């Protein structure tokens, strides 16, 4: 859908968030996961008219609250005080997750430990012995939205690709991820094909060599 582009430098977090924000269609209903995805909201423009959903029962969430605007009854999924925009609405938890599970959100942006070329997502549990598992809304978010996008570093600290042929971490959702934003490249996933839309600080050829999966290059 977009032509292949490349930049000299890897993307920093704000650059990634800015690109994700620009990719969100005007008027979309969006859920931004905890962590890096939350930063996307800082780059959405008023003209885009994007409405943010928070799993704990609100549409029309505004920016983080500060000072006198802090209200303990108005928080986001990360339990951070937020604000309310005109046109907001509140609903209970079953209705909130019905909205998500029912496919009404256009885009959900999540962090990840790993994504497979089939779009399988791992982001809830390391599977390490002794780790206490916690899932929250991750599994609902992964499979609920019309499009699930991931923001993550492409490589682990030891240099292994987090975009994999098959997950080694426990699954969050199967075949749900359609786009991955990383510091080194942006990927579109569809029907088992991984298309590189752009590379950053790395050439397509070098990327293809470092990743354990076949890559297509955007036209």
């Amino acid at each position, binding site marked *: 859908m977009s032509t292949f582009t490349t930049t000299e430098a890897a993307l920093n977090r704000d650059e990634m968030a800015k690109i994700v924000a620009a990719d969100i269609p005007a008027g979309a209903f969006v859920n931004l996961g905890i962590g890096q995805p939350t930063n996307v909201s800082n780059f959405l423009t008023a003209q885009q008219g994007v409405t943010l959903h928070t799993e704990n029962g609100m549409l029309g969430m505004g920016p983080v609250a500060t000072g006198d605007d802090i209200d303990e009854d108005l928080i986001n999924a990360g339990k951070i005080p937020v604000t309310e925009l005109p046109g907001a*609405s*509140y609903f209970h938890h079953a209705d909130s997750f019905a909205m998500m599970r029912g496919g009404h959100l256009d885009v959900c942006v999540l962090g990840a430990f790993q994504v497979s070329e089939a779009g399988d997502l791992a982001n809830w549990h390391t599977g390490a012995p002794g780790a206490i598992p916690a899932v929250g809304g991750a599994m609902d978010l992964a499979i609920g939205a019309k499009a699930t996008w991931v923001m993550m570093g492409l490589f682990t600290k030891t240099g292994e690709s987090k975009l994999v042929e098959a997950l080694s971490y426990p699954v969050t959702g199967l075949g749900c991820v359609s786009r991955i934003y990383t510091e080194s490249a942006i990927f579109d996933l569809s029907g088992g094909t991984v298309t590189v839309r752009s590379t950053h600080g790395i050439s397509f050829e070098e990327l293809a060599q470092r990743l354990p999966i076949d890559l297509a290059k955007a036209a």
Partner: protein
Amino acid sequence: MAPRIATTAAEAVANIHDSATILIGGFGNAGQPMELIDALMDCGAKDLTVINNNAGQADAGLALLIKERRVKKIICSFPRQSDSWHFDEAYRAGEIELELVPQGNLAERIRAAGAGIGGFFTPTGYGTLLAEGKETRVIDGKGYVLESPISADFALVKALRADTHGNLIYRKTARNFGPIMAAAAKSAIVQVDDIVQTGQLDPEVVVTPGIYVDTLVALGGKN
């Protein structure tokens, strides 16, 4: 996406096509989107599947759609009423298919569609004719029937008021099927008395969040 605001009921329903599945709100006259149904009549779409609590009354609205044989199938809980003569005639002539669903299962199936639930076990109808051919299961000593979601291409809903984001409030028992039908349709078309600017509805009292509303038309009203 903020809802499209149509200027007439005809414009609001213009995209409804032949063979569409349509959820139509209302219980009795309360909450019936009369003007949208009339516009659907005028727009000519046929071979429709309609989901409504009833199967039309007297010589108006849904009854006329059935009279004109534009409805090939109806899913409802209570087709037979003293004034359901057009349905009665079409049914006896074998010219309309009827899927009869207990009212609470009808509501829950519509809710399930909007909520992404693939099916649910309900005690209602267990051991009855209306469970015949359906999967049943005894859970903790009680019998249940497996029911599936009912989604649709369109919903025609009547609410009291909308804001320009599509947030809706209803009035008294006219609320009935509106909120669950709006959520279960690919495209929810809503007639309201009036549309106010965003920010004029209290976020605490919004019943249908705007995310579920695709087309709005303001038709005035008595309230």
